[in-house]
C-alpha cells in the first residue's frame, strides 16, 4: 500500500462529515454535494457551537470593561490570536492583525505600507492568476502614486514563469504580491523561490493565502514572506473575519489605517497617540464572535492535521481528475504539477452557466463564472469556467456524482 493509500484509509471522512450538519441536508430533493469550497467552506458543529456559546455565555465588548464578561470576552479574543499565531507559526501574537478577510488584509497593506513606500515610477509585481482582491488594491495604489502594476506571466498549464519573473525584478520593484494557491486554477505557486528572488532584489513579498490556508500547512517563518493574508470562511470558520500577518518590524513602522476606538492610547483634540501592535490596526469594536469562531475552526483543522488533509484532498483531486477525463469534450483549464484541490474545466458546446444550473438540479454545487479572476480568463481565452473545488469532507462518491451530473448536462445539450 502506498503512503497516499495508507493516508486515505486512516482518514475517517465519514466521521468528519458527521461534524458538518449542512452536509446531511437535501437540495432540490437530492443529497447536497458541495463542491464550491474555494468560494466558501461549510462549518463544523465545533465552530457553530462556539458561536452559540459566545453569545450564550460570553458576549461583551473587548478591551474596555472591568466587569466579568468583558474580561472573559477579552481573554477569549486574545487567546484566539494565540491560536492563529500557532496555526501559521508567527513569531509573536503582535504580528496577528484581525481583519474582515483576505481582501481587507491586502487593502490594509496597500494603503499603509504601500502609500509610504511606493512612489512614482515604482513597481508592484503580481501574477497573471491573481484574484481581483490581489489586483485591484495595487491598481488603486499605483493610480494614486503614479506607480506601475506589472504582471508575471503563466504558461498554458497555469504555472508562473519563474525565469520571466526573475527577469522582471529590478530596483523599482517594491513589493511582489502573489497567491499561495490560485482560486480559479488551483496552481500552487513556488513561494520559496519567489520570496528568495524578491528579497535578493530588496523587494517585499505579500502572500494572498486565501486558498493556501485551507489546504497547505503554513509556516510564515519558514516561508520567509513579509505579509500573509487569509480568510476565516475558507478554512471552515465564519465569514467576515480574516487575518493579516506581517513582520513585526514592518507593522511597527507602518502608519495606522482606520482611526477610531481600540487603536489609540490617548486622544485629545490636539494629538492622538496610537496603540501598540496589533491594536493599532484594529479600530472599532472587532468581530469578536468571528475571532473566537475562527480559532475554533483552526483548532478543528489542526486536530485533523493539515498534512493529512492535504494528502487526502490531493488523492481526491487526482481521482476526480481521472474520472472527469472520461467525459468527452471536457477540457481542463489549469493543469499545474503543483495543485490544490481545485478543478477548473470547460465543456465543449455548453456554457459553464448552463452546466451550473443543470448540476444544481442534481443537488451538486459548483462555481461557474470568471471566479473573480477576469484577466486569467482572458489569458486562457475562455469567458468562464466550471470549477469544482474539494474540501476536507468531500468523497470519491461525490466526485462520481459530479461526473454523472456532467453526463446529464451532455444529455440535455445533445
Amino acid at each position, binding site marked *: 500500500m502506498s503512503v497516499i493509500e495508507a493516508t486515505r484509509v486512516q482518514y475517517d471522512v465519514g466521521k468528519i462529515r458527521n461534524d458538518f450538519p449542512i452536509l446531511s441536508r437535501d437540495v432540490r430533493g437530492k443529497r447536497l454535494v458541495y463542491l464550491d469550497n474555494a468560494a466558501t467552506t461549510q462549518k463544523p458543529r465545533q465552530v457553530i457551537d462556539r458561536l452559540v456559546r459566545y453569545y450564550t455565555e460570553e458576549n461583551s465588548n473587548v478591551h474596555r470593561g472591568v466587569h466579568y464578561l468583558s474580561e472573559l470576552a477579552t481573554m477569549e479574543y486574545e487567546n484566539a490570536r494565540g491560536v492563529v499565531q500557532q496555526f501559521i507559526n508567527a513569531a509573536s501574537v503582535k504580528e496577528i492583525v484581525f481583519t474582515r478577510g483576505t481582501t481587507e488584509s491586502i487593502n490594509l497593506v496597500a494603503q499603509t505600507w504601500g502609500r509610504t513606500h511606493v512612489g512614482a515610477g515604482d513597481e508592484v509585481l503580481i501574477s497573471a492568476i491573481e484574484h481581483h482582491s490581489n489586483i485591484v488594491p495595487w491598481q488603486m495604489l499605483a493610480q494614486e502614486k503614479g506607480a506601475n502594476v506589472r504582471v508575471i506571466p503563466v504558461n498554458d498549464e497555469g504555472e508562473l514563469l519563474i525565469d520571466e519573473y526573475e527577469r522582471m525584478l529590478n530596483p523599482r520593484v517594491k513589493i511582489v504580491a502573489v497567491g499561495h494557491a490560485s482560486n480559479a486554477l488551483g496552481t500552487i505557486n513556488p513561494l520559496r523561490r519567489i520570496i528568495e528572488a524578491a528579497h535578493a532584489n530588496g523587494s517585499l513579498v505579500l502572500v494572498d493565502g486565501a486558498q493556501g490556508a485551507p489546504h497547505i500547512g503554513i509556516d510564515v517563518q519558514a516561508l520567509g514572506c513579509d505579509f500573509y493574508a487569509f480568510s476565516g470562511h475558507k478554512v471552515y470558520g465564519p465569514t467576515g473575519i480574516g487575518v493579516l500577518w506581517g513582520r513585526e518590524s514592518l507593522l511597527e513602522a507602518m502608519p495606522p489605517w482606520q482611526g477610531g476606538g481600540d487603536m489609540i492610547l490617548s486622544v485629545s483634540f490636539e494629538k492622538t497617540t496610537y496603540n501598540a501592535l496589533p491594536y493599532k490596526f484594529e479600530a472599532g469594536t472587532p468581530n469578536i464572535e468571528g475571532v473566537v469562531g475562527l480559532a475554533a475552526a483552526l483548532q478543528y483543522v489542526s486536530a485533523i492535521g493539515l498534512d493529512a488533509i492535504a494528502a487526502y484532498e490531493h488523492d481526491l483531486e487526482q481521482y476526480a481528475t481521472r474520472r472527469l477525463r472520461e467525459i468527452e469534450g471536457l477540457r481542463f483549464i489549469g493543469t499545474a504539477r503543483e495543485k490544490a484541490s481545485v478543478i477548473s474545466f470547460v465543456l465543449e*458546446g*455548453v*456554457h*459553464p*452557466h*448552463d452546466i451550473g*444550473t*443543470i448540476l444544481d*438540479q442534481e443537488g451538486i454545487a459548483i462555481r*461557474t*463564472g*470568471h471566479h473573480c479572476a*477576469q484577466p486569467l*480568463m482572458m489569458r486562457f481565452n475562455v*469567458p*468562464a469556467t466550471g470549477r469544482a473545488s474539494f474540501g476536507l469532507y468531500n468523497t470519491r462518491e461525490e466526485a462520481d456524482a459530479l461526473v454523472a451530473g456532467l453526463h*446529464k448536462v451532455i444529455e*440535455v*445539450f445533445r
Partner: protein
Amino acid sequence: MSDLRELYQQVILDHNKNPRNFHDMPDATNRVDGYNPLCGDHYTIFLKRAGDTIEEVSFTGSGCAISKASASVMSSTVKGKSKEEADRLFETFHALVTGDQSGLSAADLGRLAAFSGVSEFPARVKCATLAWHTLRSALEGKDEKVSTE
C-alpha cells in the same frame, strides 16, 4: 429532469446552437454592448432603423444558452416592429420570465413562450433579459454599455 426540460426547451437549444441574425452590421444605425459582469456574458446588439421601424436586428457575442437563445429569438421577433411594439414585447417577455404569467396569452407570446421555464430559475432571469435590456437601450438611442448590475 422536468424543470430542466422546461428551462432548456427545444426552441432554446436550437437557437443556442444555430443563433439567428448572429453577425455584425457595419451599416447599423445603433449599436450597444450588453454585459453581465457576474457571469461574463456579453453581447453587442446592432439595429438598422428606418423612421420608427426596426428594419434589421443582429447581434454578436457570447454567453450561456439562455442568453444566446434569448438574443436570437428577440432578434427575429422585433424585426419590422416599431419601438412601441418592441417595448410591449419586452414587457410581455419580462412578465413571462419573472413568473407574472397571469395576463399573458399564447398569441401575445409566440416564440417567446419557449422561455416560460426561466421563471423557475430566478438566477437565470438576468441571462434571459440581457439582450432585451440592451435592445431597449439601443432603441432609446443610447450608445453606452448596458450592465445587468
